[in-house]
């Protein structure tokens, strides 16, 4: 039986209630809109890249606790890192949330709280929406979708 407390951990509930970097950035170098057609959730992501470094990243939009917390945690995780590092982290995060729950995964620090979605397959898209949007923003696509 999948345990709800693995999904809705304190860190997730906290980031849902008080999302970090929940604002717009005026004329950022990169931006993208993420959309999950399953639930109608939308997310606007703003990324400021100076040289090769993500100096600021912020988001706005509507979403469930999982997608909001994931976006919030992501902004904290990639700020101050290079674009290459952010892309690498996308791959590692994606691997963690899509690995079957009975298999071990690497520890991604705070981001690991989202590993609980593995027990709830329909919610994996909620956790990965912000990350797909970040990837799209950095690749200068204007729109990301979980489909």
């Amino acid at each position, binding site marked *: *039986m*999948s345990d*709800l407390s693995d999904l809705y951990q304190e860190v997730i509930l906290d980031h849902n209630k008080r999302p970090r970097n929940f604002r717009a950035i005026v004329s950022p170098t990169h931006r993208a809109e993420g959309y999950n057609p399953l*639930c109608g*959730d939308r997310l606007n992501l703003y990324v400021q890249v100076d040289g090769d470094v993500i100096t600021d990243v912020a988001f706005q939009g*509507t979403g469930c606790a*999982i997608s909001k917390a994931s976006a919030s945690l992501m902004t904290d995780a990639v700020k101050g890192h290079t674009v290459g590092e952010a892309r690498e982290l996308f791959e590692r995060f994606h691997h963690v949330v899509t690995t079957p729950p009975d298999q071990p995964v690497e520890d991604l620090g705070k981001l690991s709280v989202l590993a609980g979605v593995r027990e709830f397959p329909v919610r994996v898209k909620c956790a990965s929406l912000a990350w797909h949007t970040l990837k799209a923003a950095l690749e200068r696509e204007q729109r990301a979708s979980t489909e």
Partner: protein
Amino acid sequence: MTPSAATAAKDARTSFDVHKVRRDFPILSERVHGKPLVYLDSANTSQKPQAVLDAMDDYYRHANANIHRATHLLSERATALYEGARAQAATFVNAPDPKTIVLTKGTTDGINLVAQSYGRSVLGKGDEVLISWLEHHSNIVPWQLVCEQTGARLRVAPINDAGEVELNQYAALLSPRTKIVAIGHVSNALGTINPVSEMIEQAHAVGAAVLIDGAQAVPHFAVDVQSLDCDFYVFSSHKMFGPTGVGVLYGRPSLLEAMPPYQGGGDMIASVTFEKTQYNVVPYKFEAGTPNIAGVAGFGAAIEYLSSIDRAAALAHEDDVLAYATERVSEIPNVRIFGNARRKAGVLSFLLEGVHPHDAGTILDNEGVAVRTGQHCAQPIMDRFGITATIRASLAIYNTREEIDVLVRALERVRGLFS
């Protein structure tokens, strides 16, 4: 109400035994996440009684063959099942003749058939198709497609805050330009029962043909297409306790006769040469290819099952559970209910303030409660109320007040987690 009428009404209620009905549906004794299943998602798809499961199994064991085209006994049995279900469907909606019943893949297929066959023949530039704001995407997009193809314009009758079509605005939108009106009998997202008889009469007064999407109506109450006087009535087997992949299009005989085929293939033809193909007669003209025969056999059993039930009593029971659900859910602090129409069937759509429906859906599921969360294939309604999604509890004949109590306790757990 006279004393005798009151007694009759009481008798009607007591003649419906929900616990007996529940025993007819094997899946209702299933456990999910270790809890008894509380299935409140019948507007999405209903569960199936044993009789339907048996009919499909029997077909494959004793009658599996193609229909209409072989001389052997199995084909005869398959054809009898298939055509028998067509006749049952005709009786079920009081159609004048089984020939007015086209068997489809479902409601969506029926609407697309009418849009592409009838719509494409009658629509031109300057013409209009009128729908309402309550429509399911399947009663919006097929009309958008045919409007794009023909240059016709799609008009939309607005709804009020209770989720009812604004009838004066509906009437104002009707004009000689209106060629087709397509309206849902019951809203899947809000449960509103539209006053379709009145709307059909008004549409006919300007010469428009009317399609009624009855997908959410037939599971709840008896429908009479002749008394409604609609031109097309479409519905799905899977929402009325039958299998998926089967549906009905009832069409007025004169319209079906005049309409060109929708899809080409086997069974819809009388003779084929490379120069000229003669089409089969109505309704076969609209049934190309080998259909879902097992599904149609199951659909026939579903009609038989519903016909064995006192439907007025079943509806009274459902209305009682809906009223109870509305009352209990309203008592939860910071809850907002969407759809407060005076006449409703089977649907309670709501939001808990500060909780996204998807989170609520996951937690409810963990308590064994199956609801739908999201936009319910009705994005314009969500936009109308300025929201992106709701939690929808939808009812069928097998639901009980006790299940609503489980829902309410589970919602309390949701609030506890997110407070």
